[in-house]
């Protein structure tokens, strides 16, 4: 998309291969990231480096030259995992909950201003889903403020990370995500056996396998080949 970082929406399905022993769910490795300088290098002394904030952002919210991935890598004291989407409305309530289930402390969804959405109602849909997910989190006493929505446009990488920082501040009173100490940490294979696909995070529709005669919709098996992030990164670099 020419934004200097890879688009998860364009990431190809990974081929067969073993699940790599990495906890990072980094789909944002940009092409030639190591050579590109970045202005955003921060040190958040008052935040725990264990704090993880996932930033889901519409591709139209950031400036063309924003190098979000590199800026996020250079952050200190706060782990930010940015994921670009073709539209903020690609996020589903289930995606938000899955991210938290896997141990992220908070999620910031960055959408276009209401009247700037290329899909007209995309950012409104995103807001509705954030509100729904927040209500559900309140219901289970996880804290609705773990999820947030911002409406911005032409953000620099630094400004995007400011939003992550603000979200980290908002979740701080809640303490760490209680799911952190479970085996299903964010970026690792989910310990549960429900088989949700990793690439559900990129907004693809869930696996709807309607096999001949059985007419069964399975959430899918947690096949290692679907979770090979290293190969997915290679695919991103194309």
């Amino acid at each position, binding site marked *: 998309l020419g934004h200097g970082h890879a688009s998860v929406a364009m990431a190809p399905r990974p081929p067969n291969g073993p699940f790599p022993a990495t906890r990072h769910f980094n789909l944002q490795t940009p092409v030639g990231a190591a050579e590109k300088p970045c202005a955003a290098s921060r040190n958040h002394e008052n935040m725990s480096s264990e704090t993880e904030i996932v930033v889901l952002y519409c591709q139209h919210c950031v400036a063309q030259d924003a190098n979000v991935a590199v800026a996020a890598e250079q952050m200190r004291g706060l782990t930010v995992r940015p994921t670009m989407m073709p539209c903020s409305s690609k996020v589903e309530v289930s995606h938000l*909950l899955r991210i938290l289930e896997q141990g992220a402390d908070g999620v910031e969804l960055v959408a276009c201003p209401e009247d700037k959405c290329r899909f007209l109602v995309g950012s409104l849909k995103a807001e509705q889903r954030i509100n729904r997910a927040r209500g559900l989190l309140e219901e289970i*006493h996880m804290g609705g403020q773990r999820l947030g929505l911002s409406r911005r446009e032409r953000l620099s990488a630094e400004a995007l990370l400011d939003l992550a920082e603000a979200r980290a501040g908002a979740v701080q009173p809640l303490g760490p995500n209680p799911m952190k100490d479970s085996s299903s940490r964010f970026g690792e294979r989910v310990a549960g056996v429900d088989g*949700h696909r990793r690439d559900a995070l990129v907004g693809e529709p869930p696996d709807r396998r309607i096999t001949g005669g059985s007419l*069964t919709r399975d959430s899918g098996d947690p096949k290692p080949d679907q979770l090979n992030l290293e190969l997915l990164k290679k695919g991103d670099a194309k």
Partner: protein
Amino acid sequence: VIVAEWKPVNELAAALGSHGKILLVGCATCVAECAAGGEREVETLAPLLRMALRVEGHPVEIRAKTLERQCEGEFLEELAEIIPEVDAVLSLACGIGVQAVAERFPAVPVYPGVNTTALAIREAPGLWTARCAACGDCVLGETFGLCPVARCAKSLMNGPCGGTRKDGKCEVDENTDCVWNLIVERARARGSLDFLAQVRGPKDWSNSRHGGPKRMLREDLRE
């Protein structure tokens, strides 16, 4: 469609807290249409329940599957291999589907994940309103296609009552149309107001729930 809505998550967590491995089963038919128990809702409820139970100190494994229909035996067979591996089933189907699963797999406890509420139509995105009460004696031919049993708060056969609001809404709920007002308006539009003045015999309620559990038999279809 048959309309249902999620039970409170805390209620589900309380029911499931004693189980370690749970199968969450969705139904891709009616409850998917009303966004209560389809594949998308299964994918939403599974992580939510895991978190809820984890917060309460009861970590569980939740396996998820969505059947095309839970109310028919042939589709239930998809669960046969999974059921022995779980301690309990949480069904997001309507009450029919829950019972179908429980009948097919009597050895495992089956919990309802939704409250089945109505036979309804999707009136607008995110809004479902009741249209049928399965009363067993349909009068829609006499009421211009509008059901007073399901849509009148009092199920009146000779409305409207005196409680209709000036804007044509029901006295019970300001967001609900007075169905008898709608019936009269539709009759007027067709020039058939006289039809409503006719005296009709009492409705036969014996074919509704008042007559006990329903059993429909078609000899021509039996094997």
